[in-house]
Structure formats: C-alpha cells, structure tokens
C-alpha cells in the first residue's frame, strides 16, 4: 500500500512539476509579442523619461501655480476614464476638435500646464511644444511625472 501511495506521490509531483513548467513557458511565450507590441504598436506606452527636454518649462506637482489651465495630452480613451479636475483634453489625435475649447478658454497671463500619463510619456512635451510653435503661447509648462505624479501627490495629502 505504501509503495502504491509513494508511486502516486511520485506521479503527482511529476504532474505538478510539469504543469509549473508549462505555466512558466506560457508566461515566457507572452514576452515575445509583448516586446513586438512595445516596438511597433502606435499606442505603446513611452519608455524614455521626458524630463530631459530643456525647451519647455517643468512644474513639479507641488509647485504648480494656482488658477492654471490644465491640459490633458493623453489619448481620448484615457481622458474618458478620468483626468485632473477642471482639465481640458488636448490630445494629439483629437487636436483639431480639442483646440477650440482650449483657445477660447485661455486668458492672457494664465499658465497652461500639460500632462500625460506619467514620467514615461512624452505626449505632454510634444503638445506643449506645439502650443508654443503654432500659437506662440509662452506661458506653457509640463507637469513633471504626469497624471501619475499628481495622483500620488493627492494621495499623500
């Protein structure tokens, strides 16, 4: 009986080991297409820290002046899921439609602060540059750390 039980135990252990290997294999296999997605997908998240750009003004979440005009440079789906209170959407894909509300809502002397997902995205920098280049807005800044940093700041408060 003991021999039978030990045989069953051995079979059970082999089965568990085999399943564990297959699980590891599945997790590993998923890395391939994930890497391709990162490389080729037009909506892949950014990887470089955008804080290096020197041609835009950077604001830490705690240093943003009051009464700024928040501009959300994230894609419409992310904006629809939630953004900073009072912010206006201004994504690169919805540029034409979003711009009307931004331009009409702007007042001289009021800073525009653009943000995107987090420290890894660059959409906010591109949008800020575009506002400067195409419309000559000078008081345009970018939120360092993006929406994620703002959320963290709010959580700390």
């Amino acid at each position, binding site marked *: 009986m003991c021999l039978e039980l030990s045989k069953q135990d051995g079979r059970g252990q082999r089965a568990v080991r085999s*399943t564990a290997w297959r699980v590891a294999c599945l997790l590993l*296999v998923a890395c391939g297409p994930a890497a391709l997605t990162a490389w080729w997908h037009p*909506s892949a*998240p950014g990887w470089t820290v955008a804080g290096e750009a020197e041609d835009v003004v950077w604001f830490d979440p705690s240093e943003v002046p009051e009464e700024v005009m928040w501009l959300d440079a994230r894609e419409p789906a992310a904006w629809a899921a939630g953004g900073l209170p009072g912010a206006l959407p201004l994504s690169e894909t919805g540029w034409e439609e979003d711009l009307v509300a931004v331009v009409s809502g702007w007042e001289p002397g009021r800073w525009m602060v653009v943000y995107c997902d*987090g*420290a890894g995205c660059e959409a906010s920098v591109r949008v800020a540059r575009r506002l400067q280049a195409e419309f000559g807005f000078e008081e345009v800044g970018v939120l360092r750390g993006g929406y994620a940093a703002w*959320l963290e700041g709010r959580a700390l408060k």
Partner: protein
Amino acid sequence: MKWVVTSVLAALMLVAAGSKLPDPAAFAGDIMNFRLVPWWAANVLALWVPWVEVAVAVALLTPGWRKAGAGLTLGLLAGFTLALLTAWGRGLDLECGCFGSQTSTTVGWALVRNTVLLVAAGWLVVRLAKDGREGPGETRGLFSR
C-alpha cells in the same frame, strides 16, 4: 460541465485581451490608477498581461496544456481581484480596466464578477487535478468526449 467552464474562461480571456491590445498606453494608465506599481512597471504589465491572457486562452483550449492554462487563469484572476480589493480598501474611485479603457466597470461590480470567475477557475483546477486523465502526453481534443 468542465468543457463549458473551460470554454467560457478561454472566451473571457480572449475578450479581455482583445479589449486591451488596441491601446496599451490607455491600459497602462488604468494600471497606474490603482497606484500599486511605478510607471515603468505599469508599462511592462500593460504590454505583457494581454498577451498572457491570449496564451492562457490558447492553453485552455489545447490538449495537454489545460492544467497550466487553468492554473494561470486562477493566478491571473487572483492577482486582478487582489488589486481590486486593495483599490476598494483604499476607497479609490476608478474604472477597473479589466476589459480595456472603453468599458466602464466599477470596482464593486468587477469584484463580484471576479469572485464568480475565481470560483469557476478554482473548480476547474481542482477538477483537472482530480481527473488526472489529462497528462502531458494527452492528445484528446477539447470536445472529444
């Protein structure tokens, strides 16, 4: 019954992956809303998790790989549910992002749904383990009996 649960879980995994794959950046944003991981980890997860879901769905439908598929389904669901529970515990008001950013699901509803799915996946894991009929060398098809 086993085949029904397997098929439903595989279909759900495919739908979940299909809803996230078109916009990984938005899914990364959804993950960041949970405030559990730094931005770079959210980016990695946003790229990787949908493909894990695809792999799991394929495994669930492939003879010899069902145990691994069921185990991984259970693990994924447990991970998602844990994240939702922590969000709920911290009073975060967010969309779960479980089926991409386009769908709107509150944390409460997602928790109820995930509990049902967890029970189903747990049952499947136990059933497949008890069965012992589906070993590594098994070649029977999903609907062969």
